[in-house]
């Protein structure tokens, strides 16, 4: 079935109008830029209500099957809806682990019963999902996860500890990577993958206070926690494979994710726009030659990333070190973002020392908080240093 240009344009206009009319008013507290920043109940309830509203309007999970709460439409519609959400600057759809990871995985490999049980709650934001991959001693070495799952009749008994569980204290379900066979020849083959309920005895999610002073992550402790055996995805020993499959979905609606604005991107445009009134030596900071040079360097970095995404699709221009662009993207993007946010504070003069909570802090301390939060991206998902090793070894072929 081909979709006419007209149909797509009409749809865009319709979404755009809806976003304009339904954009929530400023709640009077800082809204999370990413799902990793949901620190308290009022932020949670605000975002839950918003996601529910977007889904009810038909602009979330548009390409997911209709019988499970989706829209059953071609993906292009969701892509348009996402673009319009970004353009209107509406809040994020915050149930990201469900929408972006667990959901697509369930659609791809889940049984009918599993699909019927979980998918709708992911979209409606009734069921918040979290992810249990990282462990305190194995931050960047996922394959070495040690949390144990032991089969006991119709249940698995879970013991161990996960860390950096986003919204662990709010979540109803967790995608859990646990070791069912500690004697497997390869460490990867001993892992299994579960869709685990969080509200059972023996699971305790303790909020972690972040560098920002806020909450958003938990440390999750499992002490003889019993979960039903049918929570296992696939078979025992397939955990690593399924976890890797899960990570593939991360990139938006194209990869099967439900869509929705997953994070508010902070761009160099935001920075340039928001510093126009700042001064240095009594003149606008945008006239200062040294600061201008710094800004140009940052603009060039961000532009180079955008151009790299384009070049990555041109075969004739990717023959040297193939895959270097996609494999280094996370490293480059997150490091650039961190430096840009740091510089944004630098530009503020004495006010750069103020923080969230101070009435005089610029934009409520937005950049200060954004800078601190940027470390979650340069550390999470493989630290920049580990990423650099990966690029060196896999792309350049340098020895371990």
């Amino acid at each position, binding site marked *: 079935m081909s979709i006419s240009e007209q149909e797509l344009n009409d749809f865009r206009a319709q979404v755009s109008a809806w976003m304009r009319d339904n954009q929530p008013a400023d709640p009077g507290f800082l809204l999370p830029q990413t799902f990793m920043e949901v620190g308290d109940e009022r932020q949670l309830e605000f975002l839950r209500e918003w996601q529910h509203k977007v889904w009810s309007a038909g602009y979330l999970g548009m390409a997911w099957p209709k019988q499970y709460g989706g829209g059953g439409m071609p993906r292009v519609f969701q892509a348009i809806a996402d673009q319009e959400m970004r353009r209107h600057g509406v809040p994020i759809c915050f149930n990201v682990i469900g929408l972006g990871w667990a959901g697509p995985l369930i659609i791809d490999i889940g049984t009918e019963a599993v699909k019927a049980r979980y998918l709708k709650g992911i979209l409606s934001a009734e069921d918040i999902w979290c992810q249990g991959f990282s462990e305190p001693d194995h931050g960047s070495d996922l394959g070495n996860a040690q949390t144990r799952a032991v089969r006991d009749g119709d249940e698995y008994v879970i013991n161990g500890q996960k860390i950096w569980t986003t919204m662990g204290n709010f979540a109803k379900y967790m995608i859990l990577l646990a070791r069912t066979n500690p004697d497997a020849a390869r460490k990867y083959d001993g892992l299994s993958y579960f869709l685990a309920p969080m509200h059972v005895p023996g699971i305790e999610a303790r909020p972690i206070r972040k560098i920002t002073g806020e909450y958003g992550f938990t440390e999750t402790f499992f002490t003889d926690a019993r979960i039903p055996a049918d929570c296992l995805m696939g078979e025992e020993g397939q955990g690593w494979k399924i976890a890797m499959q899960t990570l593939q979905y991360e990139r938006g609606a194209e990869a099967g994710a439900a869509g929705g604005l997953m994070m508010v991107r902070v761009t160099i445009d935001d920075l340039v726009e928001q510093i126009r009134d700042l001064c240095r030596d009594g003149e606008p900071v945008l006239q200062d030659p040294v600061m201008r040079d710094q800004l*140009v360097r940052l*603009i060039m970095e961000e532009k180079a990333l955008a151009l790299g995404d384009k070049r990555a699709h*041109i075969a004739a221009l990717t023959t040297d070190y193939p895959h270097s662009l996609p494999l280094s993207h996370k490293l480059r993007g997150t490091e650039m973002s961190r430096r840009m946010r740091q510089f944004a504070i630098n530009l503020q003069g004495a006010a750069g020392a103020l923080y969230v909570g101070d009435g005089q802090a610029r934009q409520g301390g937005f950049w200060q908080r954004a800078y601190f939060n940027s470390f979650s991206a340069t550390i999470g998902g493989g630290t920049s240093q580990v990423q650099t090793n990966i690029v*060196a070894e896999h792309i350049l072929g340098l020895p371990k």
Partner: protein
Amino acid sequence: MSVIGNTALSFSEEQAMLLDVAREFCKNKSPIAVVRSQLETDSGYDPALWDEMVGLGWAGIALPEACGGSGMGVATVVPVVEAMGRAMLGTPLVSTTLAAQLLLRAAGAGRMDAALAAIAAGATATVALLENADWGDTRIGCTLGADGALGGSKRFVADAAAARLFVVVAHYRGAPALALVRAEQLAGGAIVPDTLIDQTKRSASVDFSGVVVADENIIAGEGVVAALRDLHLLGALLTAAEATGSAGRCLDTIVDYLKTRKQFGKLIGSYQALKHPTVDILTAVDSARSFIYHAATLVGEGPLDKDAEIACRMAKAHATDTLLYAGDRAVQFHGGMGFTYECDAQLYIRRAQWSQQQYGDAQHHRKRLASLLLD
């Protein structure tokens, strides 16, 4: 409107084909031993090799078909120049291409067809532009009298000793103009070669005093100013393309050494102190390639617009900084060997210093980018 602006990047089949052919050609014809054999010659290149390149049509890639060119534009010269940069192949292709573009853009189609046809057929040409070391100085001291007599000298004229044709930028009737001068018109001793940091390159001071230029070889009028502006940007782009190729090759040289050299019982490439900066070079080279082909996408036949200007300046600012970093680290990572003339790292660090100083260094371009992006 985003400060990131235009991010167009396309690559035609013709460009892809030329990149492929040029890489293969340069790899076969210009191994490092051949590059080294030219370091101390007068012209810095092998005329027979230049004839082969002309035979492949490279001198006329960007020239109109009416002049014997292939009409594919400067965008298609970029992959060839990148390939030459990779092979460190020094020939007058860049200086000749730029001279031809200046003529073509200033005079418009038709007027300079004879000279352009000669260039497409292999006559080497160069622009006599600078009078001092400042790329940002637009004043012109060289004069062209009403009688057609040139007065004054030019400095840093690329490939001057080899050039058959000079496009001389001179002050004429109160405005910038171009004078087309044949090498035979120069007085004996008019060309005084520079001793360059990059021994694969050649330039000279050239004294044009007393050369008389016939009317048909003078280009004056409004088109000249716009063409000179384009020349600065296209020169920046082609220098960036060449530097990007050289940086890519420099990276390969580093990677090869890091994979084979052992110290303290380990391959040195396993040390993160060397491994991580090498990844920094890789990502910088990646960006340089994205920038030059983005700029190639935006430069057309007509005067360069603002997006194209931004693209050329970014390409130059980034590519030559990248080569400086790569060359610098290549020397350091080769240890004691890197300090020798025998080690190829010297070729890259020397090329880096030379490239940085062609058509404005990174600071020169970032200063202008600031105005283009922030004002």
